[in-house]
């Protein structure tokens, strides 16, 4: 049996004005990557913070948590010693250079100076920052800062890496680089827990994905299964569906699922040929016929409209 690194049972978190996490349960197995997806305000970050003790969970109803067998309520130091955390904001010390930033954190982990220097050299190389080792933080690009925060989270050789939106706002090159590094870490035995808005990211690196909405779990499973079980294979996106109005009203409903947003009408179906026939009568700039992806599942699960917390 594979060991469970994280066990969360019936955890809730209520803030004065909002229920951030609502009776949430999930488990993360060792050496897997578990992704938390959800719109802003879904409670992803709060859940991460509860795991490493930055937030406290509600006392009632009764809940249970085990991270490496420790409950964050009583053993935050043990959990933090075994974990590395990449917070949502890059909170680096701007006054210092890269090495000094990392040296300060190595003190928090009580790593002897000589070992720390070796580890820092290794991590800067691992995240391809060696050339910038002596630069000031203010000279770094967004992607470099992010990578440095990841390096910082890896200082103590964590068995669990927690990343809160690791690639938000980064360019595709950096995102792919970070994904590669995360895959490598997983291969070396690290368990990864991350939150993201990017469906692509979840699809690329997560073994299991949990879609959250309003503090609750909507669906959970391997990305491919989520696709296979929760949504039709293809979608035809139509910008101007005026000409189709009559057809839409008729017998089409049996073969396709129709989803209208303000500007775009989407026809979901497993029958590619059928969608193609419909598309055939339109100008090519008016439609886009493609495979469905995790984003479609996400939008189906969490709704298209914005909730007030977004």
């Amino acid at each position, binding site marked *: 049996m594979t060991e469970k690194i994280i066990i969360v049972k019936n955890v809730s978190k209520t803030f004065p004005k909002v229920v951030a996490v609502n009776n949430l349960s999930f488990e993360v197995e060792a050496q897997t990557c578990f992704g938390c997806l959800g719109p802003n305000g879904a409670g992803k970050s709060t859940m991460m913070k509860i795991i490493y003790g930055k937030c406290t969970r509600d006392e009632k109803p009764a809940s249970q948590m085990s991270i490496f067998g420790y409950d964050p309520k009583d053993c935050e130091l043990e959990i933090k010693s075994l974990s*590395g955390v990449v*917070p949502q904001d890059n909170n*680096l010390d701007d006054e210092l250079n890269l090495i000094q930033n990392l040296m300060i954190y190595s003190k928090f982990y009580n790593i002897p100076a000589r070992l720390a220097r070796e580890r820092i050299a290794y991590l800067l190389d691992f995240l391809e920052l060696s050339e910038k080792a002596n630069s000031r933080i203010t000279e770094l690009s967004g992607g470099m800062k992010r990578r440095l925060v990841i390096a910082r989270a890896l200082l103590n050789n964590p068995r669990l890496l927690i990343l809160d939106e690791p690639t938000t706002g980064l360019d595709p090159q950096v995102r792919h680089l970070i994904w590669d590094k995360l895959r490598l870490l997983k291969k070396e035995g690290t368990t990864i827990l991350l939150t993201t808005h990017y469906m692509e990211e979840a699809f690329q690196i997560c073994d299991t994905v949990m879609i959250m909405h309003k503090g609750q779990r909507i669906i959970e499973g391997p990305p491919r299964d989520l696709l296979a079980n929760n949504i039709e294979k293809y979608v035809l996106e139509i910008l101007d569906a005026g000409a189709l109005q009559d057809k839409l009203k008729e017998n089409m409903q049996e073969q396709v699922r129709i989803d209208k947003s303000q500007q775009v009408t989407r026809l979901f179906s497993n029958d590619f040929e059928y969608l193609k026939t419909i598309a055939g009568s339109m100008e090519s700039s008016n439609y886009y016929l493609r495979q469905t992806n995790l984003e479609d599942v996400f939008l189906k699960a969490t709704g298209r409209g914005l909730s007030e917390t977004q």
Partner: protein
Amino acid sequence: MKLNNTVVCPPLYWRLFSVWYRHMRVYTKNIFSNGLPPFLEPLLFLAGVGLGLGTYITQSMEGLSYLEFLGTGLLVTAAMFTASFECSFGTFIRLEFDKVYDGMLASPLTVNNLIVGEIIWAGTKGLFFSFAVLCILAVFGVIHLPYSLLAPLVGFLTGVMFAVISMLITSFVRVINQLNFFFTGFISPMFFFSGVVFPTSNLPNYIQPLVEIVPLTHCVRLVRAVCANHYQMIHLWDLFYIAVFILVVGFFAVRRLRKRMVN
């Protein structure tokens, strides 16, 4: 079902030290712009008072020349100002703008470690600023060595004292500008009404109890005793006041700030 029973967390003293070390490194990174002003400020004061104001004040104060009277007071006000800034504006910026604590709290530190470590750092800054004033005063022969070499220790206590009160105030602050009230309403009056600039003994009787309540009064009295190497029973009261103040205010500061950091 402990998966790993051999987790070694850094011991308490180390966790406090590592927080202190963090602040020390960030502070000393700009050693020139951070380290020089503490020496320049007393120099300016001495020039202004010694060459200007002091020549009009011929009356001795508590048996000291005015230059010595004010100079010894500066030993603790320097500590007061630096610790107050560090733990009000500094703490607020780290908390709300730079999110420094978010990162630190992801490493094996508790909120209490973080706050206490920072208070000790503010005390250290108080010690350093006191020491800077001491250097200038000694160079110009205003105070006498070697007894006054102990004065920075009072600077340390002063620093810790004003660190805890500043943190307590900061825990109530939502918008950084509100801290201005703390400085104009609390810290600045302290400079004038705690026996630094003139002896409080000549203030009206009904104000005397107020003077005893003001925290800085005790630091000033203590530092003058240290510089003169002349101790009385009242200085035990001063020490007692300082200790209780630090413990009580510190307790509430930690409790309230924790709620801002862990929610």
